[in-house]
């Protein structure tokens, strides 16, 4: 049975207000529509339009209803973002280590050009990566220790904004590390030409590009979702 129109409209309104968290929006829409359908069917005359309006009225305003989920949903978004950036740091670390181990295993010594590039690039790469790791750990610790208050308030909004900025810092530091790696490995691969040994460094480098680019895109999406969520608080 399809939900009756006012009930479907109510469900859509709830989903619209919670559009910053599509999974939560879908779940609550289905739960609310089922609830309202059940409440209507429970009445003496379920086809009476007034009773339908009464049931919807008893449920409350969709915006006020959605607002009750705001703090937990925002904290959950912030935690998800922190977990994704932390995984990105681990992924990049794995790719870098695999490449370094491969150079040793296939006995691929660095040429003079590569050594010269490494002398400048390695400290930059290491610093950017350490910065990303430190920010990622701080962000994780920060979001894990936050608690969702019963009602949204400015301090909580600031905390969420701060965690998003920390995540953005992780993503930018990862992008810097990846760009440096791209140059350093690029020089080595360029010198090697079409060599079978180059396959592992090439694949690991592509993995880094995907991980760093993916984490930056994810953070941008999170920033947009958080700003939509904060509009619900207003």
């Amino acid at each position: 049975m399809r939900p009756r129109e006012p009930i479907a409209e109510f469900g859509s309104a709830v989903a619209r207000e919670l559009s910053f968290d599509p999974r939560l929006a879908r779940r609550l829409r289905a739960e609310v529509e089922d609830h309202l359908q059940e409440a209507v069917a429970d009445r003496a005359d379920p086809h009476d339009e007034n009773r339908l309006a009464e049931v919807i009225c008893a449920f409350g305003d969709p915006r006020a209803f959605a607002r009750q989920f705001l703090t937990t949903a925002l904290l959950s978004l912030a935690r998800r973002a922190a977990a994704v950036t932390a995984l990105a740091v681990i992924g990049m670390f794995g790719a870098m280590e695999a490449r370094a181990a491969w150079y040793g295993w296939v006995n691929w010594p660095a040429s003079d050009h590569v050594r010269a590039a490494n002398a400048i690039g390695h400290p930059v790469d290491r610093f950017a990566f350490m910065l990303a790791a430190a920010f990622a750990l701080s962000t994780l610790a920060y979001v894990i220790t936050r608690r969702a208050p019963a009602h949204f308030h400015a301090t909580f909004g600031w905390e969420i904004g701060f965690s998003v900025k920390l995540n953005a810092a992780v993503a930018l530091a990862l992008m810097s590390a990846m760009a440096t790696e791209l140059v350093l490995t690029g020089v080595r691969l360029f010198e090697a030409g079409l060599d079978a040994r180059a396959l592992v460094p090439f694949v690991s480098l592509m993995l880094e590009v995907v991980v760093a680019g993916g984490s930056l895109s994810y953070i941008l999406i999170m920033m947009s979702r958080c700003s939509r969520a904060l509009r619900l608080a207003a």
Partner: protein
Amino acid sequence: MEGEMLKGHLDMIVLAALVGGPAHGYGIIQEIKRRSGGAFDLPEGTIYPTLHRLEKAGHLASHWTTAKSGRKRRVYKMTRRGERALSDHRALWQRFADAIGGLFGEKARAPARTHS
């Protein structure tokens, strides 16, 4: 009963309503109303944030089922952790109720103070 009065005890009320077995949101509200003799007639939208919060805390678990009508339905059930939490709530509530009962009882029996 006053809504504000109930809000502080919603977790305990919802957990208690699920003692009889798994139920969906509307079913839980009906169970609360029935078992409280109509005294706890909650605003219907207030139950869902509590259900979601209890699920996040690991006190409830939920899954989708299909209702007889063919609609998708989210059904909640209490976990072991939820049972322990309810037991703690119950013990706390009993102590509180005993203390209040004692206070009211004593007040009724207390002799009127006289100032000399």
